[in-house]
């Protein structure tokens, strides 16, 4: 299912990575942020929304790194270059990510920054919408979001252009160690 997902997601312009442990994933993220020259200045920072991934990773250590913030509001998210969040599910048939985004922070970090880095537990890849809908409960999840690749438009002369109102890049990082199920 991972391979099927990866093919679909790359097909719609996402970047896909996979790591066995949270440690390896953290190393990747830090290297990535460094490459993107994340710094403590508006326009260059990163915002990280509350996610299970952070349990035991050592938020305090991460907080020492210049440019990463765990406080999320519209101003900070709009000024961030990178938004990081953990998505609940991935759908193999369309290359989509799905998350209960009732908490506004989860929406802000995945919609306002230029780059959205999405962490996903590898075990939570589902076949498609049918399997997903059996697990969704709209009565308790007021805002369920599907994200499939970066933001796109073809509204000018039908020319596909990436990054209109949402992120221009979507980096998907699967972490095997995160296990399955939804916390």
């Amino acid at each position, binding site marked *: 299912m991972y391979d099927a997902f990866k093919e679909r997601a790359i097909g719609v312009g996402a970047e896909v990575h996979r790591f066995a442990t949270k440690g390896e994933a953290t190393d990747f993220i830090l290297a990535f942020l460094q490459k993107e020259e994340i710094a403590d200045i508006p326009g260059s920072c990163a915002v990280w929304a509350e996610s299970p991934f952070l349990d035991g990773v050592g938020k305090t250590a991460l907080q020492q790194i210049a440019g990463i913030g765990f406080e999320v509001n519209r101003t900070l998210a709009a000024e961030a270059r990178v938004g990081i969040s953990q998505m609940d599910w991935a759908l193999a048939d369309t290359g989509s990510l799905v998350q209960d985004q009732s908490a506004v922070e989860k929406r802000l970090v995945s919609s306002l920054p230029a780059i959205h880095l999405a962490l996903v537990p590898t075990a939570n890849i589902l076949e498609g919408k049918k399997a997903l809908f059996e697990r969704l409960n*709209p009565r308790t999840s007021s805002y369920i979001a599907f994200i499939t690749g970066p933001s796109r438009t073809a509204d000018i002369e039908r020319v596909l252009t990436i990054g209109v109102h949402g992120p221009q890049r979507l980096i998907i990082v699967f972490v095997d160690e995160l296990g399955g199920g939804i916390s």
Partner: protein
Amino acid sequence: MKKDFKASITRAVNDANLTGALGKFSEAYKVNRAKAFEGIDFEALRTTVAEIKSAAACDLDALAETFKKNAEAQGAKVYRTSDPQQVKEYILTVARERGVKNVVKSKSMATEEIHLNRDLLESGISVAETDLGEWIIQLAGHTPSHMVMPGIHMTKEEVAELFSKEVDERLESDIPRLVKVARDELRGKFLAADMGITGANIAVAETGSIVLVTNEGNARLVSTLPRIHIAVVGLEKLVEEFSSVTPILEALPRSATAQLLTSYVSIISGPTPNDDGTMKELHIILMDNKRTEMARDPKFKQALQCIRCGSCLNVCPIFRLVGGHVFGSVYTGGIGTILTAWFDELKKSDEIQGLCIQCGNCKEVCPGKLDIPGMIMEIRRRLVEEKGQPLVQKAIFSVVNNRRLFHTMLRAASVAGKPFTSGQFIRHLPLFLSDLTENRSLPAIAAEPFRDVVKKIKQPKCEEKVAFYAGCLIDFAYPEMGVALVKLLNKAGIEVVFPQAQTCCGAPALYNGAYEAAANNAIENIKALLEEEVTQVVSACPTCTVALNHEFGATLETQGRTEWLAKAKELAEKTVDFSTLVKRLVDQRRLSFKDGEALGAITYHDSCHLKRALKVFEEPRELLQTLGYQMTEMFECDTCCGMGGSYSMKLPEISAPILKNKLANIEKTGAPVVAMDCPGCVMQIRGGLDQRGSSIKVRHSVELLAERLD
């Protein structure tokens, strides 16, 4: 048709930007759509979607109440109204009471339908459309020209011009740069807005959820950043169960833009907290505006199965030439014609309904299983019923209803037409085939109609007898096609009977909404054709075949002439198109052809009625290949040739460019012969190639087959 409507058509077809962008898109769409549906049983999927939506349309009132109850339980405020004015008043009241100054909107056809922006602006509230296409047309002061791609009629240069004014900076027409400008410019508006207005693609009664489907990410921001979110939802968006969302999400993006899924889908079930800790205000307005009335009409209830994907526009050979603006309304294309007739009024559709050539492309791809051409026919019928036929048309069909007079006039035309004959073509065909010769030569009326020729053919006496229904074109313009058919069937041991009382199949009247005249034709033909002791009735004109085996019954029913229904059914069951019959005879080894000879390349044009109403497209190809021709398929082989009966006379400005595309596609194959199974298509395509001085031969399959009998 009014002059300004004609003028708007001429303007559109001569707008190279528009036809270029639309043409390119529709050509690519077909290929991409097919790819997007790979591995999916489209028929099964659309049956599911149609069932879900149809069930909802049966029960709109109850579903709306259930939705209201459940959405309110989730914390939303739900307002139901049938009146567009009240929708606007509700929004303005909320805006006034909460001191709203700035509104951001994501794409919503429902708000376009009621012209909401105008009222907001008049109340001193600033409104920004945030879908890129919508923003572009908002800046330009245009209406949407396409349901999914509202700004498809504009070039990048025009967009650069508009944006330059908006940001007060000279911008180049570089598309990624223009998109970046829109992102930066609208970002400020998103963050400053105190109200967000969206539509909804689906509304789920069971859970009180609304579903938003977008690519740009604007609906996410519109429903997240402002403290108030108002969703304006047409009642037809309601479905009963949450699980119904899945099939619609499977079908909608694939049909709309050939995507497996759009970049973003949001399912909102009640308000969520804002980032300052307050709770968002979520208002959902369920708007009726004639929808329940539509649901009560047995002919139009199916229109509520529409999921607003726009695929009917994308495959329409007319739409890709004229774009949306000639429709003069918010909703465009085939579905737009139907919605305009309802949401505005029937007579608003008087002119635009005439744009439909009845090719049936849209019906094939519609994920909601709407019979758009059928509903447009019903609009025509009601228009004629309401205001009568135009006088000239009425005169013509009264002639067509009088077989003796009609045939006498056609015979007279063969004489009258002679002075104008150049080779096989004349410049001005009399009677109802008026004066269109600019792009196409018309055939002469034959010196001797088939009904006379047939009497002279010596046929073997056979046990099996088949009746031949010629139709006007074979009878009076192309009798040689009839001769070929008789030759073929005789060879297979079948005697051909030609009932002399047969007359026009009524299609010309029917496609002009003159159902009464069409019903009279139906009855005359039923009488004539059932009188004979025959096993089958064969026709070599697909339009006639469809009339005989699909339409007679339905037409008679609309006129209350139910005493003829059983006979119509009997005739329908006996009727067969020529290719199907001949293929069967070949398979039964009752018919064979000279073999061994390579006859070279041939290309085949699928006639609309044969391909899409009768679903026959393999048989003629297989037969031609059996003869020794090598099939070289043309691009868009099953796209209409632009004939459409009297359509080509009424709207030559559209028919001509459609024909031009068809001819170009034929020429590109390099084949010296193009075959088809419809005398109407032969008339259109042969006339077009003649006008160009082309050497490509245009043949009805029946002639090619008869030539190669061994």
